[in-house]
């Protein structure tokens, strides 16, 4: 599924994605623009709304750029939080390759 022209990059998320992390995450994602991206959310213990917003904006951007934006692994906390705040990520989570 990954585009052959561009290399696939991986972003591992920090354990704590609170309010203060949003700007950093935003910058990290911006820097990765233009490549397919796989996000590893397996280490996430806590995630706040602002970071989810950034990630979702990322997903939207990547979609517009016709590049792939997937979560390779998600921690329980990450999944529960997104579920709690009504953010659907199922379609972004990588299924069996």
């Amino acid at each position, binding site marked *: 599924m990954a585009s052959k022209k561009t290399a696939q990059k991986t972003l591992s998320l920090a354990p*704590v994605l*609170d*309010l*203060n992390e*949003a*700007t950093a*995450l*935003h910058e990290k*994602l*911006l820097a990765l*623009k233009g490549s397919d991206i796989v996000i590893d959310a397996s280490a996430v*213990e*806590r*995630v*706040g*709304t*602002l970071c*989810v*917003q*950034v990630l*979702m*904006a*990322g997903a*939207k*951007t990547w979609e*517009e750029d016709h590049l792939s934006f997937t979560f390779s692994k998600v921690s*329980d*906390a990450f999944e*529960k*939080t997104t*579920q*709690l*705040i*009504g*953010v*659907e990520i199922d379609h972004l989570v990588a299924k069996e390759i």
Partner: protein
Amino acid sequence: MDMNEIKEIFFQECEEQLAELESGLLKLNDGDRDPETVNAVFRAVHSIKGGAGAFGLDDLVSFAHVFETTLDCVRSNRLDPGPEVLKVMLKSADVLADLTNAARDGGSVDEARSRQLIKELEALANGEVPQASAAAVEPVAKPVAVVAPPPVNDEGFQPVAFSFDDFDAAEEPLMDMPVYEIVFKPKSDLYAKGNEATLLLRDLSRLGEMSIHCDMGALPTLDRLSPESAYFFWKISLKTDKGEDAIRTVFEFAEWDCDLEISLVEDEATQSGEELPMQPVPFDLSILDDEPAVLVGVVEEEEQLASRRQDRDAAVSAAGTASNVLQMAQSAARTPAEKPAPAAASAAAQSAAAQQAAASAATPTIRVDLDRVDRLINLVGELVINQAMLSQSVVENDNNGTSSINMGLEELQQLTREIQDSVMAIRAQPVKPVFQRMSRIVREIADMTGKSVRLITEGENTEVDKTVIDKLAEPLTHMIRNAVDHGLETPEKRLAAGKSAEGTVRLTAKHRSGRIVIELADDGAGINREKVRQKAIDNDLITADANLSDEEIDNLIFHAGFSTADKISDISGRGVGMDVVKRSIQALGGRINISSKPGHGSVFTMSLPLTLAVLDGMVVTVANQTLVVPLTAIVETLQPEAAAIHSFGSNQRLISIRNSFCPLVDVGRILNFRAIQANPVEGVALLVESEGGGQRALMVDAIQGQRQVVIKSLEANYTHVPGIAAATILGDGRVALILDVDAIVAASRGHSLKPEMSLAAAG
């Protein structure tokens, strides 16, 4: 209690709130950024709005609302209270005061001004730069329409109007497990203050069965995203039996930073008809609790909330305030820290709340009609006189009076004295309200004259009798106007003179030897003596060759019909300035002095009695007349010896006291009680210190004793007598005159007792 009485109480409270408002704004103006100061200011406006709403005072409500909205922006740190912002706010406080007065007395309000301010306030609330044209903003027409302004957009600066009433409005649900529909739109501020929507939603989900829809419509692409702004909002369906109150509790801290709509869904069928894809929220969220740092804090705060909720019934506003404090404390504690320190946050919150409670519980007061107090004071005055008479007749009729009677009389005397002191304390009030009024006057005059003025007040808690305070306002207003209009230079001239463009007027009050001394100092140009002199010559006050000291020239401004302003201004022209001031101060038993340094400004010093009711005096005999000398003026008394008396000049005498010479003043001579000077050796010298500085020895024939006397105004009952401050009734029923020591001292310097007359005569 009828409606009018309640209304009257409301207006009285308004006055207090307005004072609170102004002092808070002035504090902010001085750079105070204490959230509690902002809160106090906000609260004051909010209370006025609330009360005004209850009485249907629409003008007041609509203005207060706009004002409150803007203040809320300051409170939530969306608007920095810089000098320009505060200028608008101080003006708004003035207009609010005008509107309150108009609502009370039916006076008129400058509508153009209030409309202009509404525009400016709205502009500020919308984040516009002060002074910018704000024509686009429509003034708010009706209070009804302004209760809940809709948000402009997600990032808009439109704050959420709130009412403490909301807390009480919730009803207990009657049916089993009702369903609530909640729309929760956080603003960016919610995050900026360290609140977290996930935690709010988690707490919400614990109330019952919840499904949620997150609206991401506003979310931009990554490059246009501001990572700390709010884009998500939620539509939540919650099945709970905890009631709307519980839902609101969850959002309590965030209430000001989000739009929240809670509605009870009557029929579940209508709800299911909603098109929105709702995502059920998992029940087991325990994994999310692995963040003790935040959670503990939240839980503790919730507990506090629960306990405070109970108090709220008793003290709605107090508790509401406390929750503001809590919110402030919470956000203050959370925002800067990367990992929130919940213990600290909740401790800070608790102590803030405790402080708040202590403040609101401080010294209970009652309102008493002033007439009642005055009647009491009068009666106590009579009691004092009566007690003195009684003592005297006992002494006269019973020469070998038994000790028990004397002891009883002494106790009675002590008691009457205590009663008197306590009664006087009832009337004693801090000068603060008068000083506060002055800050408005300074602002207005500064505006009119285009000068930049800073008013510094000191000692505003100095207490003085209410009569003095009431009568102080007028002369003080006059003097302040003069100080700004005539005293201070224009900013250009100030800069040219090497001063800062902003002029300073300093108003201080302090107690000094049983009197209150009020000083008004400006750092302006000082009195232009040449101009004053010329004016006096033009007005035939003095002759062209009159030889006057600087002090005498300065004092010319106290003459009737004297104004040095080249053009008569609206503010302090008309030439009725300082002579009126001087007369009103004198009518209060006070004195006014001026000292001026060219280029450095002028200082007006007023010395006023603390009370107009009693004074401690020394009863003396002068030429067979009984006089009372205020004890506060007397430094010591002594029996002059012939060797200590020295003649000086034609008819002056000095007395040497401990190797220094002091002019000897024959009171009887100055008051024209006798034609020739008395022999000092036969009398007693009272060493007095006068306001003008320097000591004098006042010669009297004999000292009768020391007594507290009740002051009876000579002006009110007879007419002003130069050299005499007032009169009193002695124990034997006779009237004794109370000496005006400073006037006597001034007269001894060669001035006549009527300085104005003498100067006029000279000219």
